[in-house]
């Protein structure tokens, strides 16, 4: 196992380097830079040139890449151009908020999707199955901003149960439990939106995996031996059906930190997704590079995690 891990981790390095070259090249080649996008109005040409020199935009591309790469290896992701503070600090400010939101949303998704998927599979073509399928497809088809605005209208305006936006009540200086409850209240609507739009596909996936397992011969044998439905489904079938589902969990790693751009935008939630989108239109390249490299690394790690989980859960698989 250790050998396998080491080999995989070493393999990640050239991949990450390749990704960084591509992303850097794409951003640098995109028209417009930070100065053009934010500061050029009203400034004299000398000032614009001065600023571009200060920011290093006048140097050739390979030089700028080497500068960025050598700094990154040492842990210095550079200064965010719009926030004027280290990229690592900016990401740190926002990524944990996204993490909390995404974690709750995914837990919600899993808690709904897996049982419903299982039941759907065991009661295939029943009314429950049809209903669940409709619900799942609606969730997949519904745009998250639409669902978000709908929920805001019903549960924050018409019935003022939940706050409209934000992560905590402005001006309230809550600490400890009161603060946790306050944040929790603010998290309910956004995590519902994120969770409900994601539950559909997970449910269908579980259902399909379950259906496949139920068709297997050993399930027929178990039933023939006289085991009850509940034992057959939950002790034998489910475990095997969950194998593909568990590996999906590994892939969710980058999404936990990537931020839900649209949901965060609607709810003015201080997450990293919203910041990343803003940075794109403002051409804040250091922040975008840092954020994208983080996601790239997490995606590769997520892949690795999936493979390990797969081997752990399925005894037929041997990691080499």
């Amino acid at each position, binding site marked *: 196992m250790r050998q396998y891990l080491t080999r995989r981790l070493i393999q990640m390095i050239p991949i990450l380097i390749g990704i960084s070259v591509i992303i850097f090249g794409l951003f640098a080649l*995109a*028209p*417009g830079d930070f100065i*053009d*996008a*934010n*500061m*050029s*109005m*009203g*400034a*004299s*040409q*000398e*000032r*614009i040139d001065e*600023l571009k020199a*200060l*920011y290093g935009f006048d140097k050739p591309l390979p030089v700028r890449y080497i500068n960025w790469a050598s700094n990154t290896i040492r842990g210095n992701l550079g200064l965010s151009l*719009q*926030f*004027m*503070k280290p990229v690592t600090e900016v990401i740190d*400010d*926002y990524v944990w*908020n996204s993490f909390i939101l995404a974690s709750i949303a995914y837990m919600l998704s899993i808690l709904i999707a897996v049982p419903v998927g299982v039941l759907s599979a065991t009661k295939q073509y029943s009314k429950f199955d049809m209903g669940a399928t409709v619900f799942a497809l609606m969730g997949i088809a519904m745009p998250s*901003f639409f669902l*978000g*605005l709908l929920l*805001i*209208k019903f549960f*924050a*305006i018409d019935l*003022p149960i939940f*706050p*409209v*936006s*934000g*992560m*905590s009540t*402005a*001006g309230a200086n809550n600490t400890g439990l009161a603060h946790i409850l306050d944040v929790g209240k603010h998290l309910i609507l956004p995590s519902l939106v994120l969770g409900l739009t994601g539950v559909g596909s997970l449910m269908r996936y579980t259902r399909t995996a379950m259906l496949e397992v139920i068709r297997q011969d050993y399930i027929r044998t178990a039933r023939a031996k006289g085991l009850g439905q509940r034992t057959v489904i939950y002790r034998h079938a489910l475990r095997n059906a969950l194998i593909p589902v568990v590996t999906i969990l590994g892939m969710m790693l980058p999404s936990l930190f990537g931020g839900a751009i649209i949901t965060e*935008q*609607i*709810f*003015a*939630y*201080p*997450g990293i997704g*919203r*910041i990343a989108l*803003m940075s794109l*239109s*403002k*051409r804040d390249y250091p922040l975008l590079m840092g954020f994208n490299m983080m996601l790239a690394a997490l995606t590769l790690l997520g892949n690795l995690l999936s493979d390990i989980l797969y081997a752990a859960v399925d005894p037929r698989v041997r990691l080499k």
Partner: protein
Amino acid sequence: MKKLKWKGIAAIALASMLALSGCGGGTQAPAEGGGERADLTSQSVDIVKATDTSRNPQVALDRKDTIVIGTDDFNGVFIPQFGQTVPDRQVYELLFEPLVGVDEEGKPIDDGIATWTVEDDVKYTFTIKDGVVFSDGTPVTAEDVEFSYLVLADPTYDASSDIGKYGILGVDAYKNGQADSIEGIKVIDEKTIEFTLEQPNAEVIYFFTLGIIPKAYYGEGYTFGDLSSIRDLQAKPMGSGPYKFVEYKEGQTVTLVANENYWQGTPGIPNVIFKVTSNATEMQEIISGQIDIQDITVSVENVEQLKAAGFVDLHIFPTNGYGYLGMNHELPKFSDVRVRQALKYAINRKDATEAIYGPYGNVLNIPQSRVSWAFTDEGINSYDYDMEKAASLLDEAGWEMGDDGFRYKDGEKFEIFFTGMSDHPVLDILLPMMIESYKELGIDFKVEYVDFPTLIDKTNNYAAEMWFLAWSLTPDPGSASNIYRTGGPQNKYNYSNPAADQLWIDGVAETDFNKRAEIYGDLYRILNEDIPVIIIYQRSDMWAANSRLENFNVSPYRTFTKDLWKVTIAD
């Protein structure tokens, strides 16, 4: 997202007010409001009062000593010298104060921390008023003023303010390290400081609207060529303004508390909170009483919705800016003024503006706000929609209608390649109208769609033929010279008119307001006829304020932060 782009444009503009602030004008201390020009203040802001204050939601009424202001994402740079965005600016305007203020007509007045006199139009002597202190109790001195400006001249200063453009003596020498201080910025005594220019520049008075920062606090550890000691404090500001900084929660709120040492008296509202709101929900936040002040896109529906709520006061006034169509004058087809005039006559700007903004937009014919002291409509051609006139102008210019329905000149077909932006509130209405009108005129009008920074990049490289953008306006008309004079850095149109160039120079060299207004009048008449760009409209801004706020004041040239300390919460 498109709203963000608009706010982006406005943000750049407002943030660069520091740099753009030119317009000198007033000579002696308080600017004399010209006796001849009409007082535009009363005309500039349309206030729609709340009709039923009893409907104020309980959650708002419960906030007896706090107000919540909705705004966009902060960058967290709460220093006047470095802050670039509107939300950051809103915060630091409550924390720091300038030497010179601006009144509701856009003229300089002495409601800042100093009074001043001008000698020979080149020497500005500022005297700090008595009792002005920073929130930690220490007095504001001339050295603090000097420090606030020295920062801008540091060679590593990388924000947009441009100290070099006013001709202050000795700035370059200081930047290059040849001098220890700036010759043109001299501390006379504890309360007095002198700024000297190489030659008269009417714009410089607006440069003095920069917030003053305390040298002892920000200058600790500061050395020439290294501004990090100041940057490190960007999220912990301290100034002389009516409010003190309490807390900043990234992406969420900024909390301020009244400055008990404020030299003009205790502010009426003890606590101010800025809250980040999303465009999608800002209307709901106002109507549910969770936010007290917010600027909201003005449209017929929004106004109706806010009026229906009953407890919100609306302040509507012309935006400091205008939307226009730019063109590359180097292209032979655009270099003929008759063609440009024809293109302008062929657009029904009145209908377009009405379709986009309803009653809240107006056609504009000169590059100046209709509530500015420099505005004029004497001798200005309004280019009312006239297809016949457009056609005859094109005939005159040698573009003959061919058999295929297109115009030709010297064998060349009249084609226009327009660079637009997709999902754009203005272009979605304007472009179809233009396509139809120009087709009728015999022009092959083609459109490509790009995003905002790409468009900027294209125009910077003179690679676009015709496009739509907006410029922002500042209190000083002179700041627009960069846009329209020959070789101006913002002149992306290759436009050149020597007569106009001279007037731009004259307008800045003259420091008397009334005379300046005349010069700019002449200038605008030339630009109106010569059409460097086709100006379409000036739209409006709207600020919604909970009716329990008394004395809330906002106008085109005076942001609400300037007078917020006088606002009180009704019982």
